[in-house]
């Protein structure tokens, strides 16, 4: 399946675009995606944390991803 991933903050700089189309095997989970992205973009390892949001909510640990999901990478937040 091909996922659409929104990128913000430093992850946008590391990956070099605002939106990423990214292939993952069907049934892939949130941690699978993070692990694979870290292989594709090793600089993600340097971040304090990389979370995944699924449809505007923080993704759960073993949550399965679907092609229709709105997915976003959430690097450490720094609002306020």
């Amino acid at each position, binding site marked *: 399946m091909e996922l659409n991933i*929104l990128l*913000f*903050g*430093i992850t946008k*700089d590391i990956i070099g675009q605002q939106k990423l189309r990214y292939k993952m095997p069907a049934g892939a989970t949130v941690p699978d995606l993070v692990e694979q992205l870290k292989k594709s973009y090793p600089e993600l390892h*340097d*971040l*304090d944390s990389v979370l995944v*949001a699924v449809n*505007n*909510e923080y993704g759960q640990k073993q949550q399965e991803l679907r092609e229709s999901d709105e997915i*976003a990478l*959430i*690097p*450490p*937040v*720094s*609002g*306020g």
Partner: protein
Amino acid sequence: MNSDDTISILLTDEPLQVDPAIRSVQAEGAGAIDVFIGTVRNNTQRRTVTRLDFEAYDPMAVKEMKKLAVRACEQWPVEKIAIHHRKGTLYVGDIAVVIAVSTPHRQAAFEACKFTIDTLKQTVPIWKKEIFDDGEVWVSAHP
């Protein structure tokens, strides 16, 4: 609790004003209003900051700000709460965030306001980049 009237959430490109946040939490049952205003400081670890660029994942940021307001209302006897956050480019002295909380007595207002700003900084998907004379950095990105 009626969330339409008691919770005011704003995420905007426009300069933030303090008065609307305060007005939005005025309530007859309130004996206290506590306000936190986050402003742009001119330095970080002795480096001169020229501006901050705030970026938000808008729909999720608004959702998380609402959740945060609801959590504050569950933990303290909040009459009304406002969480207003700016995005875009801000300069020294500009207001980045305004939080206002009204409660019957002051202690709860102080505590709920502190909880809200502390938790906002941990959960709401907003990012700031500090721009210095000689470089730039996404705040908190690296350990």
